[in-house]
Each structure stands twice: as structure tokens, then as C-alpha cells.
């Protein structure tokens, strides 16, 4: 049996007196898409940022590709990538220029062909000479995804990639992510407030509440455990439910 691509064990993060992440543990297999769900303040973004090495843990461990993140950060980041609705590529450069810069930052030797190939894959080749800051939200999302797939990542972290997009564009972006992921076998950690997104894209879901994992399983298993017909109902129950039993206690 192949070892998991990512192993998180008993992760804890305190910001002063506030415990943002409280003993979170999970694994991610190769080619799997794991959804991180939870109400605002649940700890999703903090976990995501810890996986990227942007925030250090108080205790616990993160191993990616079998190596501890703390000591092999750069080596690991070469095989990962990230895209978020809350960051953007420099708006004052052309799309092609931005992607070229990131190809260099990721040390991609055949950057010319890789940039061209990725732009074609994500249907943004016609935007190559457009100023990035002048793109529509949907176009900018596709360009951000291009950047995220530039280095053929084995692990991709997507933080609300479809936020503030209209349903038609959301559907296209979702399909694009799923198709590209299947072709490349990329493992993905995906956060979204769009429950349909999570149901359609993710193989497994991890529900966080007040920094703790309260449920983990396939979308169907999660719905069944809450006796609910949709993840949205589960989300509302969790958000309004106050203290909930944590995973494993059930």
C-alpha cells in the first residue's frame, strides 16, 4: 500500500489565548480531492496556511511527500501549488508575463512551452497579451488556475477558487479543475463555501468547527451521519449547532 501523500497529525495553533486549530489530524491519498469545510472561524484557512508553511504550528506535525514540512519546505513547495480567490497575480503585467515570471519562480526549465501549453489547457491562450488587472472575474480565476497548474503539482491547495463567480462560470471552472486533476492525478485540498462545489468536486470532506475536526468522510457519508439530504443542511446544522461531538466520538 502506498503511503499517504500528506499526513497531518495532531496539529495545534494558538493565536494568543485563542486556539484556532485544535488537534487536527487527517491524511490525503494520491489523486484524492479533500474538501475542507466549516463555518467562518472554523480554522480552514489557518490549516491551509499551515500546509503552505505560512503559519507555524504550536505542536503537531505535517509530512508532505513523506518529508516533514518544517525542514523540507522549499523541496516540498516545488511539488505543490496554490490558488486563492483572495490573492491575485500582479494586475499591471500581461497574463503571459505573469505566467512566465511564476514559471521562473517555480524553476520550470521549459517555461516557454509550459506556459503556452497551460494557457491552452485552461482556454486562456487568447488572453495572453491582455493586462491581468483588466480581466473579468471568471477570466482571472482561469488565469490563477493556470498559475496553479504550471509546475504540474502533485498537491494543489485551492482556497475558494470559485468565490464571487456566476453559476455558469463556477460550473466551467469546476469541470476544468476536475478534468485537469483526473488527467494529472493531482491531489487537491479544496475549501469552498459553495456546498454544491464540494459535493461535485471532492472525494472526501473534512468538517471543521472551532478548530476541531468534527466529521470526516465522503459527502454521502457526511450527509448520512447528519441524517441530512444536502451538505448545505449539514453546514447550517454545524454552524448553528454550538458544541458538536468530535470525529471518533460518535
Amino acid at each position, binding site marked *: 500500500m502506498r503511503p499517504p501523500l500528506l499526513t497531518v497529525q495532531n496539529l495545534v495553533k494558538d493565536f494568543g489565548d485563542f486556539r484556532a486549530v485544535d488537534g487536527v489530524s487527517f491524511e490525503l491519498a494520491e489523486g484524492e480531492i479533500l474538501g475542507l469545510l466549516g463555518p467562518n472561524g472554523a480554522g480552514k484557512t489557518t490549516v491551509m496556511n499551515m500546509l503552505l508553511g505560512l503559519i507555524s504550528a504550536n505542536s503537531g506535525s505535517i509530512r508532505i511527500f513523506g518529508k516533514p514540512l518544517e525542514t523540507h519546505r522549499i523541496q516540498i513547495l*516545488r511539488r505543490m501549488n*496554490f490558488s486563492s480567490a483572495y490573492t491575485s497575480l500582479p494586475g499591471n503585467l500581461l497574463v503571459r508575463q505573469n505566467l512566465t515570471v511564476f514559471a521562473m519562480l517555480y524553476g520550470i526549465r521549459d517555461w516557454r512551452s509550459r506556459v503556452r501549453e497551460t494557457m491552452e489547457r485552461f482556454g486562456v491562450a487568447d488572453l495572453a497579451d491582455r493586462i491581468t488587472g483588466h480581466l473579468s472575474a471568471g477570466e482571472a480565476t482561469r488565469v490563477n488556475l493556470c498559475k496553479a497548474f504550471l509546475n504540474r503539482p502533485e498537491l494543489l491547495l485551492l482556497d475558494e477558487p470559485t468565490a464571487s463567480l456566476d453559476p455558469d462560470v463556477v460550473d466551467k471552472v469546476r469541470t476544468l479543475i476536475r478534468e485537469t486533476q483526473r488527467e494529472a492525478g493531482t491531489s487537491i485540498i479544496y475549501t469552498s463555501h459553495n456546498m454544491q462545489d464540494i459535493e461535485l468536486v471532492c472525494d472526501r470532506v473534512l468538517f471543521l468547527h472551532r478548530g476541531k475536526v468534527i466529521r470526516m468522510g465522503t459527502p454521502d457519508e457526511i450527509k448520512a451521519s447528519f441524517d441530512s439530504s444536502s451538505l448545505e443542511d449539514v453546514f447550517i446544522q454545524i454552524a448553528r449547532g454550538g458544541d458538536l461531538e468530535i470525529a471518533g466520538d460518535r
Partner: protein
Amino acid sequence: MNAFPFSPIAGIVLRYFFLYTRNGLRAFELFFWPLNTLLVWGFLTRYLSHAGAGEVSLPVSFLLGGVLLWDVQFRATQGVSVSFLEDVWTRNLLNVFVAPVRTWELVAGFCTVGLLRVVITVPILSLMAFLAFQFNLLEFNFWLVPFFGNLLLFGWSMGMLANALVLRWGQAAEGLAWALPFLLQPFTAVYYTVETLPRFLQPFSLALPSTHVFEAMRHAMAGNAPIAQGLVLAFGLNLLWLGIASLVMHRVLGIARERGLLTKVATQ
């Protein structure tokens, strides 16, 4: 992965090459302020020298030399600090920090941008100084190398400290980051000698590498003192300042990771 050495540094430099070559206004900004300062100081000193009916050439030369060399340090500082701020302003900082770029590569990239800014602006300024005021920077001969080298090094240290301020206190510290070179300017004897400063400020002034460069420049112009010793001292002080700036940057990055400041600065 086909990583090749120095690719991240090349990526950072390429980003600023793209920025300045596709935006005329950015290129204009590169030249406007130093040219403006050069002309104002040049004409003012010429006027004062004429009004006082004294020796014209030496005071004018001291000031013009000061303006030109100060710009070297200022551009080097800006190259490091503004490059970093550019990523903050464009909400790109997180993308850069999650890319496989080591801190030293990031700093080296910014320093190279600073160096290129100097390489581009100083020849134009020098030409202008020669045409308008018959001030020939090349008269410094090989001394220009240690002058420029020392000022670049100190400018990079200041740029790193400015970035540490922004990382630690967010965009609220941005103004301070911009002002940092000017906070030091009165004490580093750009346009006057160290002896002009009050006695209690002189040790502080002498702890700044740039002070020794400006003093050396005046000695070289007046031809009345050996200057090598001062430049060696400046280099030693630069190593010390670079060490301090690196330590501060390293420590602030640690604090930023501990407190989640990187994401705050990047998304504010």
C-alpha cells in the same frame, strides 16, 4: 522537476523588467525625482556661490557629488523595499511566499532590482550633471567602484529593514519604510561634513557606512586626505549592517509565521 539555479532570482528580476518596460509612467518615475533633485541643488548652489562671490566650483561639486551618490543609496534601498511593497499592493505576496523561493533568493532578487535601478539612473544623472554643471563623476576614477559598492550594500540593508517593518506592522508601516532613507539622511553627512553635526550625534553618524563614503568623496575632490581607510571602514560597517538586517529579517519572518502576519499583510 527541472529546476535550474538562480531561476527564482531571474523570475523576480524579470517581473520588474516587464513592469518598467511596459509602463512608461513607471520608467518616468525612475528618473523624475533624482533629476529634479540634481537640478534644484545644482542651481541653488551655483546661485549661492555667485551671491557670495566666493569659490564656485568646490561647494557646487561637493553638493552635486552628494546628490549623485545619495541617489545610488536611495535607489538601492527602494529597489529592495518597493519591490516587496509592489507585491503587497498587487495582493501577490502570498503567491510569492508559497512559491519555492528561499528568503535569500527573494532578497537577492530585490537587491538585483536595486542594482539595476542604479545602473540605469546614475549614468543619466551623471550626464545631466556634466551638461548642466560641468560636474564629471568619472573624475573619481576607480574610487567610484568602492563608493558605489558601499552605498549599494548599505541601501540593501536599509531596504531589508524597511521590509521587516512592513512585515511586522503591516501597511501601517509603509510610510515609515519609504521614509527610512530620509530619516538617516541628516546624520550621514551627504551634503556637509561630519564635524558640522552636534558632537553627540557624530558617533551615530560614523556608525553609518554611507557617512564614510560621503566624507571620502569630499576628500577625493579636495585632494587633501587619503580616502582608502574610510572606504575600508565603510565596507566593514556594511558587513555589520547586512548581518543586522539579515538577522532582523529572519527574526521578523519567524514572528510573521508564528502570528500569521504573512497572510494578514498579503490580503489586507
